[in-house]
């Protein structure tokens, strides 16, 4: 009764990931409707990160054996290269490119088919304003605070017009105050844009705030 044809959903169908002989993840089925946040929890080594790597397309197939399918908006992207999947990714660290300015980082994310320079610039500026960072474009990312950098990383991911979002413990390095507000901002943006979100976390608060399905790995 999987309804992975729900328009705009991120769906996993029978995903199995093996390391050596052991199955880290065994026939996982999951449908995340647009705007929903599904949470994957489990101890270290339980396969959380491998699952994200599989969905994003970075799983090392020399080490892991994986089966199953990833569907975005009903289309199977399992065989697509990572850069063709249009699945956005946020890490524990912001990983802003250190050699580009803040706006340079954002422009890197704007799809190339928007060729008009002014239009690209306008999109980046609007994203900065959205993130409460208007006027920060020319800054060196290394001079921003942790919270500001996290927001730039989110806007960069969103500007690339993803169809789904993967979160790899993106709040764990922020202090308690920032964590709550940034988390709310990420979920809010995902809801506004109708993005299905798959989040990996250690923190039960994150799962509670997400309010969606929780998958526990052993």
């Amino acid at each position, binding site marked *: 009764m999987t309804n992975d044809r729900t328009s705009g959903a991120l769906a996993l169908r029978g995903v199995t990931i093996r390391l050596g002989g052991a199955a880290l993840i065994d026939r996982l089925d999951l449908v995340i409707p647009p705007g929903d946040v599904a949470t994957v929890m489990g101890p270290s080594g339980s396969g959380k990160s491998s699952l994200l790597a599989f969905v994003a397309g970075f799983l*090392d197939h020399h080490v892991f054996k994986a089966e199953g399918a990833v569907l975005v908006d009903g289309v199977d992207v399992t065989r697509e290269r*990572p850069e063709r999947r249009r699945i956005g990714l946020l*890490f524990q660290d912001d990983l802003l490119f250190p*050699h580009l300015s803040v706006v340079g980082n954002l422009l890197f994310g704007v799809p190339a088919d928007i060729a008009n320079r002014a239009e690209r610039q306008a999109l980046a500026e609007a994203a900065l304003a959205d993130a409460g960072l208007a006027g920060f474009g020319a800054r060196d990312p290394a001079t921003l605070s942790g919270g500001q950098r996290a927001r730039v990383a989110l806007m960069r991911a969103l500007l690339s017009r993803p169809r789904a979002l993967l979160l790899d413990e993106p709040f764990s390095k922020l202090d308690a105050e920032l964590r709550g507000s940034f988390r709310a901002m990420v979920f809010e943006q995902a809801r506004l844009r109708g993005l299905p979100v798959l989040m990996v976390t250690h923190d039960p608060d994150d799962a509670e705030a997400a309010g969606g399905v929780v998958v526990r790995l052993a």
Partner: protein
Amino acid sequence: MLALIPPATLFLFLAPVLVGLAGTLLPAFGYLPAIGATGFSLAPWRSLFDWPGFGSALRLTLSVGVLASLLSLAGAVALVATLSGTRWFARFQTALTPLLASPHAAIALGLAFLIAPSGWIVRLISPELTGWTRPPGDLVTIRDPHGLALVAGLLTKEIPYLAIALTAALGQVPAQRLIACARAMGYSRNTAWLKLVLPRLWPQIRLPFYAVVAYSLSVVDQALVLGPGNPPPLAVLAARWFSDYDLAQYLPAAAAGMLQLGLVVTGLLLCRCVEFALAKTGRHWLERGRRSGMGEWLLPLAAAPTAAVLAAGLLALLALALWSFAASWPFSAALPRSWTLAAWMSASGRLQSSLEATCLIACAATLIALILCLGCLEQESRRARKPGNGVLWLLYLPLLVPQIAFLFGLQVALVRLRLDGTLVAVIWAHLVFVLPYVFLSLADPWRALDPRYARGAASLGASPARILFTVKLPILLRPILVAGAVGVAVSIGQYLATVFAGAGRIATIATEALTLASGADRATIGVLGFAQSVVPLLCYSLALTLPRLIFANRRGLA
């Protein structure tokens, strides 16, 4: 396309070594059709062994090689152990840069200026301490029959090389925490360093040390300046016979080259055995639990003379500069009386043409090496497969095989390809030595780059090529430029490779400096030696400042 780069790279830098070895092995047994020798025989070996000075040449080779490699290792370990974790360590590394950048030959020339009986040191202390008003005639300080000056020359280059290798390895070991942990158990700092840190560094400096052993056993360029002439070390003897007008001398020369190879292989096997034995007895030494021992006073005691050797190396470079600008420098004056640019002017024609060739060859070899290495590393990260230990050994092969054992064979092959004496041949020969160094200095920073940058960029829709050119290469600009500077320095230092592949027809500053070493006046030698050190040093400083200018506003790359 990218997948072809690793095999092409292996071919480009290993084929010359293997073809060259074969092309030297056959003449050593009497087969060299090019000069009409077609019958296999042991005659070349017999004439090598019958050469009157053979015994002393062999003894000299072994004593210089063993002494220089053991002292280099002991000195580098003592200095790094004493200085690491102190505020002097950073300054120490900066002080090494001129010695690392300067070619062996330039330092040898400068050292001769420094320690010769009429050299700078004697001038500084005469006549006050020595009573000498003219250079002492009976004092032998360079080209001594035991090769001690040559050992000193080798130490000034090999200690910095091993010290840098140790420093790089230190970056991957939590040395300060290991030492703190041992000190909490009552171990002294130096003992903790020797018992806990050094064993973990060893696997990473094993191959650099082997390269030092191979180089010290088979050195030619420094031996031409600092080593005894009659009999010379074995490798110099082979080089001399290879350049003899009597072509029949090629055969015993090839035999000498092969004997040289045998010495190096035996030496390295011996190192391996000693390592094995030390690993066995060393465990006992570690488990006995003694909190302090000889290391306490041995390390500082060894560090002091090592520092003196390095200081001598730096003074040697300064001596080259002084003599190149000296108008008159009568004996026993501490400094030149008057200064002039005359030597630079009169050498300018020679300098300009050889400098042009040098730079062209160095830039071409380095650029090719950089492209090949970056291609190999990019292919490695795309396939998410790290090559095994065997590849590292292959990479070191040109540094472990004595040059004299394969350059003649390479020249024979180049003659058959009608490439001998061309720039292409010299660039290719230089590439053989440039490529390993470029790869080694590039691989660590490349592999240390957080792979999530590339993943993040891919999830933003960037293609692998775009990620390479707009994310990886700019972030790694600094290590790429440093690797380039290393490549240029290695190329500028190549003497034998230039002589053989260039068939004596292509003159670089390295060949000019050594050709003039025995004949020309000190000012001209000073000009060529100094130029040979300054060019690589300029490249290093460019590699360090350029990224700082380009990324002036990017603290994350500082």
